[in-house]
């Protein structure tokens, strides 16, 4: 809604000090990304959207291609892009004379939840001299190919010990009669630590910088860097008109502050809507110092820096730490690899506004040449990513707004045509049931989500009786405007404290502004007709537009938020990753084609 006025309310919000996004990049800067750019984004509150993983490798029973000794193997890791091209991610070192090598050199891979990351691993026998030669410069054409394996990165991450064993095949997948051996890939997150601290700050006797009222203070916390400067890591919200403010607790992850002894610069500013915030005072303390302040219940004075060293002006204003608590923060990968699942559910709009499915203009038209319609695209894009996180790949699939065989309009019918069981197997199963339903169900109306949301909420609630390691994701694909917004809001509010996220994709050209209300991104929590308010924002809405090749799909934007929603639920319910008895389990060898 571009206007002449800045979003002052937005400007007053806290940044960076809440539960960090689950996908925190590696602070150790392995060179995979630029430190400066990362800090730039973080200072503006935007987090790069991936988790850095380190892949380590071992193999067994490799082919022996050397005459007088054994093979000298090395692994090269590729990412297969959408256009089929291979991008090299890295290589291990060369190990001398070994058919069962365990490599030391790890390869970094950025784990992005929202995409399907196809990895290819090629093992080579290095024949040329590699002594004192950087592995990167070895020309693979000069080496002997020992075998190839492939998998999707999320397959590794969902494994209990984050290890996947692949059977190696010849080039182009031809196995033939040869036994190429196996390759085991293991993934580790490279986050420094899982510790975080939650701190509640308070100030007293701050100077008044406003003319007709009192200061509107907020704190900005920065981390000092080696070059002597400082990079902001978070800021509190603004408290209006108060010289003795208390702010909401900040949660800082160890990645943000480095170590407990790392000096942090804490500045207190007076907020001005024109952007020129006036410095009230600053001070320098480490996390360990802040812990001491909390224990001793003492305050520390701010000062105003001066150009003359040693002549800083000490102020009356003081900083106190009212709460200090250390927490353990598990990452998304911690949960997933310990056995947590994302269960996928789909609901498809069967209202008449989509158009007669037999006509090519219809949003439900199934193209005989295979081009996917918007519904199929959305199902495929979301399903292909989430299926790896769903153990049994058994997905409930419903339609709404259609007239079924018995003549009545149903707002929650099973897509597979079965009266009692709503589940289908795999993304292919959803596509088949969808095509089948188009032949057997007449499009009707009106557009109502309430029943589908209630069904999904019921499934999520029922699962809590037996375990709490399942999180549900409902994808609703619709072409139109909701007929009963309030009923939908009621259903969403009732579902808002359950382990459920709802993704709504709008297809076609309707004006979806009403749907954005459901998304609640503007801060307005949904309110039901009974006065209950949504516990959390479980809905995300995005209109699907035609995507030019090469661009990132909007559906991916939806998926990016999922790990965060999953983590915020688990953390607020104080649910920790499962601890399996790993010794009793063997990682099953997986045959990958």
């Amino acid at each position, binding site marked *: 809604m571009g206007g002449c006025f800045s979003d002052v309310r937005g400007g007053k919000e806290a940044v960076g000090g809440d539960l960090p996004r689950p996908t925190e990049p590696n602070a150790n800067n392995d060179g995979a990304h630029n430190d400066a750019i990362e800090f730039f984004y973080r200072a503006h509150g935007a987090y790069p959207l991936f988790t850095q993983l380190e892949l380590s490798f071992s193999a067994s029973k490799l082919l022996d291609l050397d005459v007088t000794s054994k093979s000298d193997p090395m692994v090269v890791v590729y990412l297969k892009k959408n256009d089929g091209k291979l991008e090299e991610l890295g290589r291990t070192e060369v190990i001398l004379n070994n058919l069962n090598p365990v490599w030391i050199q790890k390869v970094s891979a950025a784990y992005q939840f929202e995409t399907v990351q196809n990895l290819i691993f090629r093992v080579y026998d290095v024949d040329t001299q590699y002594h004192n030669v950087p592995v990167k410069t070895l020309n693979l054409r000069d080496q002997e190919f020992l075998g190839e394996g492939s998998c999707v990165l999320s397959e590794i991450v969902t494994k209990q010990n984050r290890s996947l064993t692949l059977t190696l095949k010849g080039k182009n997948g031809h196995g033939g009669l040869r036994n190429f051996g196996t390759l085991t890939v293991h993934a580790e997150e490279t986050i420094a630590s899982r510790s975080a601290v939650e701190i509640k700050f*308070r100030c007293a006797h701050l100077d008044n910088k406003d003319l007709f009222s009192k200061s509107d203070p907020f704190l900005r916390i920065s981390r000092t860097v080696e070059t002597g400067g400082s990079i902001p890591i978070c800021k509190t919200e603004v408290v209006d008109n*108060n010289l003795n403010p*208390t702010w*909401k607790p900040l949660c800082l992850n160890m990645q943000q502050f480095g170590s407990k002894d790392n000096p942090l610069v804490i500045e207190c500013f007076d907020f001005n809507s024109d952007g020129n915030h006036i410095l009230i005072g600053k001070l320098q303390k480490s996390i360990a110092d802040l812990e001491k302040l909390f224990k001793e219940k003492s305050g520390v004075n701010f000062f105003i820096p001066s150009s003359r060293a040693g002549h800083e002006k000490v102020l009356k204003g003081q900083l106190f730490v009212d709460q200090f608590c250390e927490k353990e923060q598990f990452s998304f990968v911690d949960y997933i690899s310990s*056995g*947590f*699942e994302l269960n996928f559910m789909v609901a498809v709009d069967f209202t008449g506004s989509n158009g007669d499915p037999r006509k090519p203009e219809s949003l439900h038209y199934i193209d005989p040449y295979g081009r996917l319609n918007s519904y199929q695209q959305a199902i495929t894009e979301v399903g292909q990513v989430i299926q790896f996180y769903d*153990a*049994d790949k058994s997905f409930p699939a419903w339609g709404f707004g259609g007239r079924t065989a018995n003549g009545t309009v149903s707002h929650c019918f099973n897509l597979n045509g079965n009266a009692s069981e709503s589940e289908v197997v795999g993304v292919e199963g959803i596509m088949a049931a969808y095509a089948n339903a188009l032949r057997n169900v007449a499009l009707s109306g009106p557009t109502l989500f309430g029943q589908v949301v209630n069904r999904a909420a*019921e499934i999520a*609630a*029922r699962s*809590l*009786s*037996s*375990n*709490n*390691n*399942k999180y549900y994701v409902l994808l609703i694909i619709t072409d139109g405007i909701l007929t009963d917004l309030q009923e939908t809001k009621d259903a969403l509010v009732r579902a808002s*404290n*359950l382990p459920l996220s709802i993704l709504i994709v709008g297809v076609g050209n309707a004006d979806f502004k009403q749907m954005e209300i459901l998304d609640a991104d503007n801060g307005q*929590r949904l*309110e039901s007709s*009974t*006065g*209950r*308010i*949504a*516990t*959390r924002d479980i809905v995300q809405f995005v209109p699907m537009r035609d995507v030019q090749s090469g661009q990132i799909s909007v559906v991916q934007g939806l998926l990016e938020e999922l790990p965060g929603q999953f983590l915020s639920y688990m953390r*607020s*319910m*104080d*649910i*920790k*990753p*499962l*601890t*399996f*008895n790993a010794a*009793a*389990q063997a990682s*099953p060898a997986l045959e990958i084609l």
Partner: protein
Amino acid sequence: MAANSRTLEIKVISAENLKLDRKSVKKNASVTVRTDTNSQFCTTDIDTEGGAYPRWNEKLVLDLPTHSKSIIVEVHCKTSSGVRTIGTATVPASDFVGEYVPEGYLHFLSYRLRNHKGERNGIINISVRMKVPEMYACASSTTWSHSTMGFPAAGNKSFGGGVVTGVPVWYGAYQKNY
């Protein structure tokens, strides 16, 4: 055999955007929670710092009679002229006694507060958990400690696909009379 009351653990977490006479509340907000039968009530401490966005994080315990249909949450403010009610919300029992959600589930709930004129006046955030009745004492120690409850004792290759052992006896066994 049903008990004639259930114990509710209510954590009064925070409130948002409280106003008194159209002006934001400055301080001294507190919350009273009581049953709709008025058989019992509990009050939090006063929050002196949060102003219109107070935080209490205080746990209150109420015995809810079986025939009770809701609990009432009232937010008060201690002013120089006495204690005034800022707003009230009614929490129906059906919101924390779900048909499908197991007992003992920690429900995070939020409600719209309305003042005596019926106008909207802020939001109250609470969490409610029903405590397991005494007669099932063997399971009463397991108040939803998530990391170890109800998971297969022996290793399962598939995550959550099989039958789970160790489900506490009282799940679903208690007849709800609401």
